[in-house]
C-alpha cells in the first residue's frame, strides 16, 4: 500500500509571532517544525504501513527550507520525500493544485493530511485536493481502520458533540484530528538514516493548470491586549457580574 502524508513547515507551536510597525510578520528569529496535525498524518501513515506493508511518501509544497521538515518525516520513518518547489505565499487553491498534481504522479492508495495548519488555519486545502482529484474524503479523523484488502477505510470523525463513522473508498483523502494517535519522536538511528533516503523535487513550473491567486494577505495586526481579569469571591458574585454584563 502506498500512503502519502502532506507536510507543512509551520512556526514552532509556542511561538509568539511579532509584527513590524507596518504590519508584517517578523520571521527571522522564528523556529519551524512540522505542522502538528501533519505529524499525526505521518504517524498514522507509518502505523498503517507497518501493519499492511508498503511505502510512506512525505509531500510538501514549499521552498527549500521545507526540506528540513521533510527530513523530520524521513527521520520518523517515512520512506521517501517529495517537494514541489514554490516560494511561500501561494493561496489555498494554488497549494491544493500543486498537491493534487504531485499526488496524481504518485497515485497513492491513501492521502493523509493534517486537518489544518497551525499558522494560517487553512483547513480547506485537503478538501480542495480531494475535489481536484475527484476522490472521496473524510475529515477530523480520530480513528482510521482499513478493511482486509485495503480498498475501503472506516473513519471515525470528530463532529460537533460526538463522533461520526463514515466509510470511504480508496484512494481517498483523510484529515487527522488530535486524538488520532500520539506521534513518535524521531529516533537517533532514524535521524541518521534520513539523509540516505530518496528526496525528489518537482519544479513549480511543471504543475499543470495552476490558477491565478484568488486570495492575498494584505497585512497583520496584533490582537488588542487582554483586559485585566477579576477574581470574584463567590458563585453568587460571579452570576451577578455576568448578569450585569448581559452575558447570561
Amino acid at each position: 500500500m502506498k500512503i502519502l502524508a502532506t507536510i507543512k513547515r509551520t512556526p514552532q507551536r509556542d511561538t509568539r509571532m511579532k509584527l513590524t510597525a507596518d504590519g508584517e510578520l517578523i520571521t527571522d528569529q522564528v523556529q519551524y517544525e512540522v505542522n502538528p496535525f501533519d505529524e499525526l498524518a505521518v504517524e498514522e501513515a507509518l502505523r498503517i504501513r507497518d501493519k499492511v506493508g508498503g511505502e510512506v511518501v512525505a509531500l510538501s509544497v514549499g521552498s527549500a527550507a521545507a526540506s528540513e521538515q521533510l527530513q523530520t518525516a524521513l527521520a520518523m520513518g517515512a520512506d521517501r520525500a517529495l517537494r514541489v518547489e514554490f516560494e511561500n505565499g501561494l493561496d489555498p487553491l494554488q497549494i491544493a493544485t500543486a498537491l493534487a498534481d504531485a499526488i496524481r504522479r504518485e497515485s497513492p492508495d491513501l492521502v493523509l493530511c493534517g486537518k489544518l495548519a497551525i499558522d494560517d488555519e487553512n483547513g480547506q486545502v485537503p478538501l480542495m485536493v480531494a475535489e481536484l482529484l475527484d476522490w472521496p474524503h473524510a475529515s477530523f479523523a480520530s480513528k482510521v481502520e482499513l478493511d482486509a484488502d485495503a480498498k475501503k477505510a472506516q473513519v471515525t470523525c470528530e463532529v460537533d458533540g460526538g463522533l461520526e463513522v463514515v466509510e470511504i473508498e480508496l484512494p481517498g483523502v483523510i484529515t487527522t484530528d488530535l486524538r488520532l494517535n500520539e506521534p513518535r519522536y524521531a529516533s537517533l538511528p532514524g535521524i541518521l538514516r534520513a539523509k540516505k533516503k530518496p528526496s525528489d523535487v518537482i519544479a513549480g513550473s511543471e504543475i499543470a493548470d495552476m490558477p491565478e491567486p484568488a486570495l492575498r494577505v494584505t497585512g497583520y495586526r496584533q490582537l488588542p491586549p487582554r483586559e485585566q481579569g477579576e477574581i470574584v469571591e463567590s458563585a453568587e458574585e460571579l452570576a451577578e457580574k455576568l448578569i450585569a454584563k448581559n452575558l447570561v
Partner: protein
Amino acid sequence: MADHRFLYDLDDTRFVLFEHLRVQNLFELPAFSSFEASDVELLLNEGLRFAREVLAPANLPGDREGCRYEDGTVRVPQAFHEAYQKQGEAGWLAMTSDPEYGGQGLPFAVGATLGEMFVGANCSLSMLAGLSRAAASLIIEHGTDAMRQKYVRPLIEGRWQGTMCLTEPHAGTAVGDINTAAFRRDGKYYVRGQKIFITGGEHDLAENTIHLVLARLEGAPAGTKGLSLFVVPKFRVDAQGRPGEFNDVVCTGIEEKLGIHGSPTCAMSFGENDQCVGELIGEENDGMRVMFDMMNAARIGVGLQGVALGSWAYLTALEYARERIQGVETKNFRDPNAPRVPIVRHPDVRRMLATMRAYSEGGRALLLYAAMCSDLADHAQDAEQKEHAQRRLDLLTPICKAYCSDRGFETASLALQTFGGHGYLKDYPVEQILRDARIAPIYEGTNGIQAMDLLARKVGREQGRLFIELMADIDACLQRCGDRERLADIVQRVKAAKAQIEQTTMSFAAQQMSGEIDYPLLSATPYLRMLGNVVVGWLLAQQAEIAETRLGEKFAEKNADDEAAQNEVLANDAQARFYADKICTASFFATNILTENQWLGAAIDSGNRAALETHWE
C-alpha cells in the same frame, strides 16, 4: 503561573560547531566518516525538540516530588519514568557509545552539544543517563570480553544504571582513605563496605544496577595505590545476560538535598552478608588509574551541567528583561510621565545580561573545544595530532569542570538577580536552576581539588609543556587578529592577560624549586580562575575574529561602508546582528572579566600569607 519553558541557544551552538570549531572536519576521520554536517543539523533540531517536549516537562514535577526511599527501594519522580523510557527507545542515551555495542558512535563534540540540551532540560534525569554511559565506556575500555558482553548494551540502552562508588563517610576528597574491603574466596572477589552519596545507587527506572566500586584488597598497601576497581552488579548476571541472583547490595537510605531532587543520592551497603561478588576490572591495585577514565569524562560532564543550566538561566532572564516593565529611561528620570520601559533598557541590567552571556557563550566554547580535543585524542590518524589533543584535553579537564561549574552557578545567581524578587519565588524556573547548579562545583572532585590537579599534575607536567603549547596557540591567534582594527582592544587585553599568567606560572615554578608547597596551594583556585579566563578570552577572541570577517562580508554585499548603511544592514539581518553581538561578547569579556586577572595575579604575586597565618585551629 509564569512559565518554566526550557530555553536553549541553538544559534550560538550552530556557530560554535560549524563556524568556530568546524566539527565537520571530524567527519573526515574514518571513525566518523558516516556522518555529515546535515546530520548534525537534523540532530540538533530533533534533539532540542525531544529535550523541550519530553525531558523538560518532567523537570519541574521532578524537583517538587523528589525521590522517595522505602525499605531499600528508591522511587524517582513519577514523571521521570515515561521521559526516560522514551529517551531510551529513541536511542538518545546511546549517542556517543561504540556502535559495536548498539551505540550510535557520534563524535563527543556532537554528543556534548546534545548533552547540553538534555542536561539543561532535565539535569537530574540526564546526569543519571550520563553515568550509565560513562560506566559502559569504562567497561568497554578496561573490561574483559565477558564483561562487555554482559554489561555494556543494557547500560547504554538505559535499562540498567551504572554508578561510580568512591565516597565513604570519612573518605570524600581523600579517596586514598577508602575502607571498603575486597577479599578473595573460591577464586572470586568479594566486596564489603559502606559507600555514601552514590548517585543512582538504587532506583526504580533501572532493572539492575552496575556499581563500579573502589575497594582495598586484603593485604594491599594504604593510600590510592592500594585500591582496586570492581564491577559489582546488584543482581548477578548469568551467561545469557539475564539479571538473576541478588548480590548482597543494599541501599540503606537517600539524602535530602538543596537541589537535583530528582536524582537519588544513595547510601549503599555492599556485602553485609559477605555474599557480594565483584569482578576485578583492570589490574589489582590499579583501580584509581582505571577509575580516572570515568572521572575525567564525568568532570567534563559536570562542566557541561554548569554551561547547560547557566545558559538556560541567562536566556530566561533575557526573556524576562525584555518583558518586565519597570521605571523610566535614565535620561527621563525627572519626568514622572515618561514612558515606562522594559528593564532591559537599564544599564545595570545590561551589565548582568552581558556578564551572563559572556559566561554562557564562553563556557560553551570551552566545553565543546575540549570535547573536540577528546575526539581527536581518540580518533585522529596522525600520531602527533592525537597526542597533542590528549595533552590539551588533560590540561583543560579541570578547567572545564571547575571554571564552567562556578560560572554556571554565578550565571544562575545573576539571572535570579535580574528577576528581582520574582526570581526568588517558585513561580519561575531560576530558583530551581540555581539549586540544581550548586552541586556542580562540589561533586566529581571539589573545585578546590580541580585547581590543585591543574597546578600540580597538568601545568606542572613535563616541565610545563601543556601550558607552553597552549600559550603558543594563543600567540598564533593574537598574531592573526593583530592587524584588525575592530579587534585591537580585545587582542591587546588577551595579550596582557597571557603575559601575566605566564609570569604567575613562572613564579609557581620557582616556588616549587624552593620547596614551598602551601603558598601555591593557597593560590591554586585563583590560578585556575585566571587560566580559565585566559582560555575563554582566547576562544572568544577566535569567535570575534570569525564574526568580524562574516560581518564585513555582509556589509560588503550591501555596499554598506558608512555607519548609517551598516546600521541598516544590522536592523534587517538577524545573522548580521548575531555576528555584531559576538564581537560585543568578546569585547565585554576581555574588558570586564579577563581584567579580573590583574588583581588575581597581583594577589598571587604578593606572597601574602595571612590566610595561612590566621589562628583557627
